[in-house]
């Protein structure tokens, strides 16, 4: 047999954690925390993503090369978001009359 076999118990725990986090993100979105609503929503989404990727997608037991590709993909996405936003946010910083 090739590869790591995760126990049914672990899969069930991850599944339950994902369901609970879905409920938490739904309920918490009704609480007014100002700009932190978005932060909390994204933190919960990232935790859920990590649970799915590490356990359901076996990244935890993958080779270092596969891990590098995964992290590299997310790094490029971060670059895309960061550079795009740095453009849009700073566009009128140099406009005349300021």
């Amino acid at each position, binding site marked *: *047999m*090739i*590869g790591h*076999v*995760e126990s*049914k118990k672990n*899969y*069930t725990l*991850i*599944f339950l954690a*994902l*369901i609970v986090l*879905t*409920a938490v*993100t*739904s309920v918490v*979105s*009704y*609480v*007014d*925390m100002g700009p932190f*609503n*978005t932060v909390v*929503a*994204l933190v*919960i*989404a990232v935790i*859920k*993503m990590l649970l*799915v*990727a590490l*356990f*359901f*997608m*076996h990244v935890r037991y*993958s*080779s270092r*090369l*596969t891990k590098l*590709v*995964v992290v*590299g*993909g*997310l790094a*490029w*996405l971060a670059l*895309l*978001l960061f550079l*795009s*936003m740095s453009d*849009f*946010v700073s566009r009128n910083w140099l406009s005349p009359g300021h």
Partner: protein
Amino acid sequence: MVNTETLAVREQFESAAQQKEASTLGMWIFLVTEIMFFGGLFTAYTVYRSFFADVFAAASNTLSATIGGVNTAVLICSSFTMALAVRASQLGQRRALVWLLIATMFFGSIFLGVKAYEWNEKFEEHHVPGPSFHLEGERNQGQAQLFFSLYFAMTGLHAAHMVVGLALLAVMAYRAQVGRFGPDYYTPIDVTGLYWHFVDIIWIFLFPLLYLIGRHHTA
């Protein structure tokens, strides 16, 4: 009966483990291109939401958070059965594998059915971008249309991926049924699982970003 042809290690590989590693890596590289594919939409969303935060929040509130939340749970169920399906294939449990793949397709189909219901609702409420678009009580109809354009583009692209996933699962269920897979060869199931979980992760981000951004204004 196990088809021996699929078990064979092709000559460019040293071992079955290396062959599987190559397939997994190839799938991950494809998924990285998918991250960038969806990434463009997520970036567009981030830019316009930062410009028109209030309109986006108001438009988001017209979506049903309950339906969206339940559908998220349905999709997580499908990911759970998919993970168990890969496990069954690793252990050579053919019957369990077939049924778990069918269960995954079942949950995936429910998700798409609910999505279709939601889209239909948008048409009836005139929340589809176009000449007949109208969002009640909103002065910036153009900005509201932008939200719904992104809503349809993102959920539409996601649903298209689900349809592809369902087709893949159907092929895998058939091949599992005729005994193509075993503990020494389950790469196609594993790789299909990676794709399915990836589509789940996209929805994990779409749900809070599309459905929940304006809820605290109504509380």
